[in-house]
């Protein structure tokens, strides 16, 4: 599917972004006042983002001017976009500091300006002040605990710092807001798997994490039965579980998830292997209906399968 300026997917590959940004002259040719439509402003906003990504600051500034002329400079969303633009144009750390000061000044006047708060957090993070960003996020989430975007950002922040249990907590909050998001289920499984396999973690909690990771991946597949990351994670967990079966300790039932018996794990392992190899085979051949997968993810799956083939 050709990228469209009407949608703003969170993970747009660079080539698609470039393709979008190249539409800038055509879009900016028309005069903004002629017959306003809803799509028009979404187009400007996404074009602005694409232009910033590809370094076309001039076109981005033009989009910005039009948005500002329409919605006014004191619109919260426009303010955030303006901030984004000045962040992109800033040269060096000193100017970024100035942008940060601007954000602080805006927030001083209006502490509920959520778009600017988020920009400030993102800026703090990109300047490397991760713990500041985390505390600002916690502050934001204190007065707005129903913000899934902020929770997942917080989870990612904690994850980069290696604080797995905090990251898991934050991601569980995202799940509370959208309980059927299979990607979040799989991501939570990934976090739990990483928490389980990271050395230095107390040995007591490891089977607990693995058990929940297994169930998270299973749930994610149950919700979306073609989800590559879900199968990949399931395969990883079952492999490590089957390997360590010998030293599995007897589990106590204290409200935790318990591991299923080894037969079930084996069957899950078979299921994941079969499905993964099916996905890999079909998307290598570029069959109809199997094209949506990310190439790198498919390559990783292929690697995982071949590793397992050697081990056996």
């Amino acid at each position: 599917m050709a990228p469209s300026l009407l949608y703003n997917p969170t993970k747009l590959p660079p080539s698609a972004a470039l393709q979008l940004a190249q539409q800038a002259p055509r879009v900016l040719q028309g005069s903004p006042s002629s017959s306003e439509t809803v799509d028009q402003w979404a187009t400007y906003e996404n074009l602005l983002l694409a232009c910033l990504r590809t370094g076309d600051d001039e076109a981005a500034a033009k989009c910005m001017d039009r948005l500002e002329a329409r919605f006014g400079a004191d619109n919260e969303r426009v303010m955030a976009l303006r901030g984004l633009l000045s962040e992109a144009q800033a040269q060096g750390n000193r100017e970024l500091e100035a942008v940060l000061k601007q954000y602080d000044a805006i927030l001083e006047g209006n502490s509920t300006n959520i778009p600017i708060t988020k920009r400030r957090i993102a800026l703090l993070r990109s300047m490397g002040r991760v713990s500041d960003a985390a505390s600002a996020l916690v502050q934001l989430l204190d007065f707005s605990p129903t913000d899934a975007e902020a929770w997942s950002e917080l989870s990612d922040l904690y994850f980069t710092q290696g604080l797995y249990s905090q990251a898991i907590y934050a991601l569980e909050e995202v799940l509370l807001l959208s309980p059927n998001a299979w990607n979040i289920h799989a991501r939570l499984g990934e976090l739990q798997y990483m928490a389980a396999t990271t050395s230095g973690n107390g040995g007591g909690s490891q089977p607990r994490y693995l058990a929940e990771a297994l169930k998270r991946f299973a749930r994610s597949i149950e919700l979306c039965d073609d989800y590559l990351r879900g199968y990949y994670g399931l395969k990883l967990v079952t492999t490590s579980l089957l390997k360590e079966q010998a030293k599995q300790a007897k589990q106590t039932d204290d409200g935790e998830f318990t591991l299923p018996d080894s037969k079930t794990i084996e069957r899950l392992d078979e299921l994941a292997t079969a499905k993964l190899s099916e996905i890999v085979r079909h998307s290598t051949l570029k069959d109809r209906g199997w094209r949506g997968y990310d190439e790198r993810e498919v390559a990783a799956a292929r690697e995982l399968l071949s590793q397992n083939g050697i081990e056996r």
Partner: protein
Amino acid sequence: MAQVPVQTIHRDPQLFCWILFPITIVMILTGVLRHYASVLMQSAPKKLDQKTIREQRSLLHGINVRGNFHALSKKSFATRRDALVTAFESGAYLKDPERAGQGQPNPLSDPSSMEGMMGMMKNQMAMIIPNTLIMSWINAFFSGYVIMKLPFPLTIKFKSMLQAGVMTKDMDPRWMSSISWYFLCIFGLQSVFNFLLGSDNAASQMAQQMGGMGAAPGAQMFGPGVDPDKQFKAEAENLAVIEHYSVLDDVEARLLAGIAV
């Protein structure tokens, strides 16, 4: 059986030009005007301060936890439940904790709620005033006329609806008086306004009435006169009685039973 003779009334052909079209055009114009008037009068939604947002969203958070607890494991749910119940019962999320337990404030004394009521009043006024004016205008100038004959037969029940203002017992219900044409316009111009002004216009009163009903539960939740402390206490109780189960229980069995490769 003798056929009922077809009633014929000789009408001045000018009736069409001078009554039917004027009423229709006036109705459409007032609808358009009302739309723009209400757009102009619309006050921007009031900015909530941080504490109010915190109060409302914390309550929503609690409701979310109650609704989607099955996505969590038992332990993480228990942690959240304990924290939330403690905080809700102690009033930690309230806008002004010292006012907790004083009962609900008088909604009329709160300036922010007054504003909401004024907005509602304005909307009502924008609907009532033009309707009254047009109705009295029609009554004064055009009452008592029969202006057209509908091209399809109707039963006698429609007489009171279509012949308002014409006191003739035996007339066929297909004949229509001017005031009835006005009522038909009120209810029938909805699609015309949709075409002229877009689907979310303020001209159609049907939509307004429906909207009033639809918005009521949402407004009620944080509306004036509702004591947030009581809401929090009720929510804490709801949370405390949840019997936890997880969607992750037996998920492997479901998966193995459901997916065939």
